[in-house]
């Protein structure tokens, strides 16, 4: 029996900032102080506040230590764990109030969040099935197998209004119902864990922090549609998640929660992993199933939909990791509970990976209908360095931008589509005034050009041409007619591509054109990049009357483009310098060296 639990984040974010070394140090120090029977060290999944990692929480006090270093551990153990004195200098500053230490749930980052899918992340040890069971794990599966018919399960999910969290937003219950309605000797349940959007890591965190919830939900889905085999398609670039899933599957099999005759019923179900090799298109459902079958991951036309003819030609359901993470709670607490969260047409919560120009980079789960302003300014802690919010990008390479004047939009599926973006899987990248919107569109398009599988022409050649047009704009080589032509091409690609990758690839261009057309025009007509990002449109120069002739800039210039002139400015003693624009590589190294702000970028 332990009197104190020390939870250390073992998610990918904190692991890269050294949490394993922290755990080792903790165990050594705890032993040194003879506390090994009193204090338990638990490696958990992601807490969400990745920006402050490595993160460590000590219970029962609930003390939140952030950015912990290995050398702090001896002090934390001897002061806090041995003597009960919280080391306040290492505590997350937002939890320090005048009255003492505040609860973590009262901090701005957590206050507006509601954790359903992430319920156990950062609370349990993901490699211990008993801890999951201690948090009501596998109770929903027991309930389903012993007291509900498959139709009742499907009706509950339908009634809850749960929609696919992978981005499309298709009603999950309906998907299950369609698959159940198709008779076959074999059916399959698949889980899409091929999370590929740049900057998105919701699914990874769920799998790393609470792998059993996905296994439990897939087994429930198997019972509902009449399947006996499940596959989790997960990208090989998620080694920690793969390890923990393997551990979880092994434990569940040992406990008889996967395998034959689960809970003594005649229902049997098992799950296997399939590793993706890093192709973005394999996140598309038909490509994913083709890849599981052992073929090259390419999409095929629909219909037939997977519910009719999916994996190995059998009826199949494919849901996203986060969708599954909601299922056991809906079964246990009921459809009415789930419906009470969210907006009219989007129920429940959504997990977002918050990134970009924001203070609290990390993972957040909010009720649908929370406004973007609340996410950015309150939960996210605002934009660093006093910069202004310019736009937020949702939906990754398939999504679009939400500009500053729409910051009060409540986030749900339909609102985001109405303003030309999409929910997507949940990447949310915040951009400030230093971001060039043309450059952002170009960034996402470079990604889709790389990841286009090449099967259909509109996507393979269309996105390539689109990227070339964007490139010309950022180099100042385009005309206004090119912008119109580019827009036309966008619609052509959207309408004619085979799968979701191509159909949504032009979205970043279309939405930036919609809200930031003036920036495109500035690139084309004025040959200027208003945010000062596009190198070809930039030029650096020295205001000679401000130059003291110290020569620091010339020393910093890697291209030897800065030289002394004969001109001595009034009131100065040394001759001024100048930049040879023909030699300048526009690296910007000189700007920081000038104490007199004599170098300007325009």
């Amino acid at each position: 029996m332990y009197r104190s639990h020390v939870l250390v984040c073992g998610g990918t974010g904190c692991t890269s900032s050294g949490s394993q070394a922290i755990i080792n140090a903790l165990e050594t120090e705890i032993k040194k102080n003879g506390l090994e029977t009193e204090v338990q060290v638990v490696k958990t999944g992601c807490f969400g506040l990745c920006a402050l990692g490595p993160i460590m929480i000590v219970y029962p006090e609930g003390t939140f230590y952030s950015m912990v270093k290995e050398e702090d551990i001896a002090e934390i153990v001897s002061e806090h764990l041995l003597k009960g004195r919280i080391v306040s200098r290492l505590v997350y500053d937002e939890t320090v109030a005048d009255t003492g230490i505040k609860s973590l749930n009262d901090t701005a980052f957590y206050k507006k969040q509601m954790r359903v899918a992430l319920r156990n992340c950062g609370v349990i040890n993901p490699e211990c099935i008993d801890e999951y069971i201690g948090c009501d794990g596998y109770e929903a599966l027991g309930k389903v197998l012993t007291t509900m018919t498959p139709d009742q399960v499907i009706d509950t999910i339908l009634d809850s209004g749960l929609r696919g969290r992978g981005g499309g937003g298709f009603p999950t219950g309906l998907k299950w119902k369609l698959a159940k309605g198709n008779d076959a000797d074999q059916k399959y349940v698949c889980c899409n864990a091929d999370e590929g959007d740049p900057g998105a890591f919701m699914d990874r965190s769920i799998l790393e922090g609470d792998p059993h919830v996905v296994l439990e939900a897939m087994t429930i889905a198997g019972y509902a549609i009449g399947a006996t085999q499940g596959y989790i398609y997960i990208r090989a670039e998620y080694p920690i998640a793969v390890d923990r899933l393997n551990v979880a599957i092994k434990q569940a099999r040992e406990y008889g929660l996967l395998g034959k005759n689960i809970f003594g019923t005649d229902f049997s179900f098992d799950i296997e992993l399939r590793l993706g090799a890093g192709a973005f298109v394999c996140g598309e459902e038909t490509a994913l199933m083709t890849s599981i079958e052992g073929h090259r991951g390419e999409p095929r036309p629909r219909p037939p939909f997977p519910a009719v003819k999916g994996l190995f030609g059998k009826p199949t359901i494919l849901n996203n990791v986060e969708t599954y993470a909601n299922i056991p709670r809906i079964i246990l607490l009921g459809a009415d509970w789930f419906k009470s969260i969210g907006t009219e047409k989007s129920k429940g919560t959504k997990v977002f990976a918050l990134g970009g120009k924001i203070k609290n980079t990390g993972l957040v789960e909010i009720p649908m209908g929370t406004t973007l302003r609340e996410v950015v300014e309150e939960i996210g802690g605002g934009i660093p360095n006093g910069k202004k919010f310019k736009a937020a990008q949702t939906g990754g390479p398939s999504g679009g931008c939400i500009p500053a004047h729409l910051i009060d939009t409540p986030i749900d599926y339909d609102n985001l589509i109405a303003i030309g973006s999409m929910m997507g899987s949940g990447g949310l990248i915040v951009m400030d005034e230093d971001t060039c919107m043309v450059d952002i569109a170009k960034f996402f398009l470079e990604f889709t050009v790389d990841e286009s599988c090449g099967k259909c022409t509109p996507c393979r050649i269309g996105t390539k041409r689109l990227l070339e047009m964007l490139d010309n704009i950022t180099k100042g080589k385009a005309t206004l007619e090119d912008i119109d032509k580019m827009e036309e091409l966008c619609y052509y690609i959207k309408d004619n591509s085979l799968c979701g990758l191509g159909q949504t690839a032009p979205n970043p261009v279309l939405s930036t054109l919609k809200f930031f057309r003036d920036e495109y025009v500035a690139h084309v007509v004025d040959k200027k990049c208003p945010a000062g990002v596009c190198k070809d449109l930039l030029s650096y120069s020295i205001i000679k009357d401000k130059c003291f002739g110290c020569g620091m800039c010339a020393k910093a210039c890697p291209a030897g483009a800065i030289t002394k002139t004969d001109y001595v400015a009034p009131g100065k003693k040394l001759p001024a310098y100048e930049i040879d624009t023909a030699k300048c590589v526009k690296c910007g190294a000189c700007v920081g060296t000038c104490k007199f702000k004599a170098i300007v970028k325009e």
Partner: protein
Amino acid sequence: MKSLEELKAIRERMQGQVGMRGEEENSIRVVVGMATCGIAAGARPVLTAFSDLVQEKNLTNVTVTQTGCIGMCMYEPIVEITMPGKEKVTYVKMTAEKAAEVVESHIIGGNVLTKYTIKD
């Protein structure tokens, strides 16, 4: 595992452990003074006794935690018990045996053991 009962048994055993990681507003708080003075006077076995008993008896609404020096070092080991809506009770010169009595009588039974509390 072949039955729901087995699952329930694991759940109940584990709830006592993972239950610590929540933040209950209505819980009973047992605070043991664990400064140098407390430890020297024998606070460690007292703390261990409380946390073991609370988990053995599956008292999910009780939080056992530690604090620093309360300032009355001659009375150590000191234990404070706060119940929701009631005044704080301070026990002094505690031992592991006394702790067991306090758990039974005060925490479970609701009767303050005045023979161990601080005298004015």
